[in-house]
């Protein structure tokens, strides 16, 4: 038995040593990193985080403005219908007017012809390119991704042990944190010796490499805010990230509110069942 114990100790030490080596190996050279993103996104504070989080409607409206005036030139948002913009605090009439700014293709009509008409609230955001190939052709071969779900489809790896703590802190904002970090991360200079491919732009927060095809999309004072919010890249990034989170998860508020009721019910019901259980078992040693 002593031998087994010694064996186990050796096994444990070997494992610990190997793990240390693994972690040491992850320390990559600054000039040619192998793991991305090079920098982890900072954890921002969002109105919609936590168990009682709600969307800040003014922020979503600003984010929509940034999307409309900047992002939508290249990025589609196929899954989002205009009618759902009422969630942002717009009235039915405002949504109708907003939809009418867009032209969509419809048809065929009675003559068998396709025609364009003004969009109605039931239409979805029209895509900037007719198809994937056209989008790729216009953008140096890399089609800009659709934005409907981007806030749930991107998240920098959290790593151990952070991913364990995330359960208890209810961290679910990896998407907006990533988008914000990426949009504000263009100003950093690449380290000396790093080669950046022609036509790409260094961004240490990019999830899939050291540089990406998209150039810095936002600059200060590019979009005019009516509510006096600062017209900075940081603010634009924050607002559009929040808007994209809403676009990806439009029923988040209902989810968290239902969750509170469900948890309260389960807690109360569980307490009653526990007391009943104690009562039932009180006459039996077990």
């Amino acid at each position, binding site marked *: 038995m002593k031998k087994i114990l010694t064996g186990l100790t050796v096994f444990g030490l070997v494992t610990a040593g190997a*793990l240390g080596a*693994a972690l040491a190996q992850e320390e990559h050279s600054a000039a040619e990193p192998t793991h991305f993103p090079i920098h982890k996104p900072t954890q921002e504070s969002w109105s919609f985080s936590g168990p009682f989080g709600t969307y800040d409607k003014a922020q979503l409206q600003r984010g929509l403005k940034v999307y409309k005036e900047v992002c939508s030139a290249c990025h589609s948002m196929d899954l989002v219908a205009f009618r759902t913009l009422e969630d942002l605090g717009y009235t039915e009439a405002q949504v109708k007017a907003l939809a009418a700014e867009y032209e969509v293709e419809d048809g065929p009509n009675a003559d068998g012809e396709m025609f364009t008409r003004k969009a109605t609230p039931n239409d979805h955001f029209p895509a900037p390119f007719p198809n994937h190939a056209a989008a790729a052709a216009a953008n140096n071969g890399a089609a800009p991704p659709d934005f409907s*779900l981007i806030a749930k489809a991107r998240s920098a790896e959290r790593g151990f042990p952070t991913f364990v703590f995330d359960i208890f802190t209810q961290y*679910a904002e990896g998407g907006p944190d990533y988008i914000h970090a990426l949009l504000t991360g263009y100003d950093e200079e690449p380290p000396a010796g790093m080669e950046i491919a022609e036509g790409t732009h260094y961004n240490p927060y990019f999830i899939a490499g050291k540089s990406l095809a998209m150039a810095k999309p936002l600059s200060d004072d590019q979009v005019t805010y009516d509510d006096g919010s600062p017209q900075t890249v940081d603010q634009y990034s924050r607002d559009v990230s929040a808007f994209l989170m809403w676009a990806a998860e439009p029923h988040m508020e209902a989810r968290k509110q239902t969750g509170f009721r469900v948890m309260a019910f*389960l807690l109360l019901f569980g307490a009653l069942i526990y007391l009943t*259980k104690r009562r039932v*078992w*009180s006459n039996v*040693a077990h």
Partner: protein
Amino acid sequence: MSGGHSTYTPKSGIGRWIDARMPLPRLVHDSFVSYPVPRNLNYAYTFGGILSIMLVAQILTGVVLAMHYAADTGLAFESVEKIMRDVNSGWLLRYLHSNGASMFFIAVYIHIMRGLYYGSYKAPRELLWILGCIIYLLMMATGFMGYVLPWGQMSFWGATVITGFFTAIPLVGTWIQELLLGGFAVDNPTLNRFFALHYLLPFMIAGVVVLHVWALHVVGQTNPTGIEVKSKTDTVPFTPYATIKDAFGMIVFLAVFAYFVFYIPNYLGHPDNYIVADSLKTPAHIVPEWYYLPFYAILRAITFNIGPIDSKLGGVLAMFGAIAVLFFVPWLDTSKVRSAVYRPWYKLFFWLFVANAIFLGWLGSRPAEGVYVALAQISTFYYFAFFLIIMPVLGIIETPRRLPNSITEAVLEKNKSGGAGHPAGATASPETRG
């Protein structure tokens, strides 16, 4: 245990009429009311009940989701998003179903570990254990096919990788793979047959669950002491005792389930599955759902050829072997003593096994490169050594602790020594003890 004759007496005329013709109420009464269970069952024994409600929950949410889902590569992704956005409470149904799968696996892993710890697989419960292993296998198949249905990037590439395993089998491998795929690559026929099978398999699980419960009710439950029930004082009737305890276990479990569904519904998923499947774009790291990660690590740990077996086939054999070995556990364990409570060394190796399995899971999520491969090999070795070396050898050389003569004796002994720190033990205060 259920060998004793039925105590059911119908109270009404209609009850007697039915009982004489089709005694279903009698079966229910004998199985879930008067059925005797050991009095010392702890909360680890509530997971059977938890698993049955999880199965029902998955079937119910799944049937409704199927009403809105379109099994077509051009429509699947959007139909799931339509459920999330436009179907009334669709987001709730879908999050319940996707997180429910994870919860189902958490529960089944605890259930299996409970069995391994208390030696629940030993005679006469070998068939009960094997039926459980079959359920677990069916669950894995169901979970895998379900993950393909949303038609995201991980759905597509996970399906490509996992069906690719079968090509490692000599002679018939490619034929099996093409049969699974309905073609040469993952495409519309694959999605269609996976949807059909994903809808079918849960009902097969339900069928095997009936056999599992039947077998259980023939041989009776084990208990933490591992000593068989000897007299009536060792047991309590299922209702109200087990019913209320199971109910409490279920509610605690449902609270954990709800926490995930309502607050971190995407925590257990992969962000890439919110990108529509693209056969031309391989994700940086293809990883299966978390509940397959230990087996994925074992698969990738075999990086060397063993005689005529190349590393690919070796990996697949090791992976399937890791599940197949569970079927032989009743005969691999040579110990005369059932419960780990009385087996100090087995207890130690058991907890090492649990830690090792979790570690394997983490390794499965890492890229198969550098030191991770060596670590996975060490962990894989321990996984198999636990079943193939430790279990048979330890049963012969280990000196178990003294066993109590009966469940009742064990319970009374425990209560005499205080039972401090055990909330359930505290309830049996002397004034109220019957």
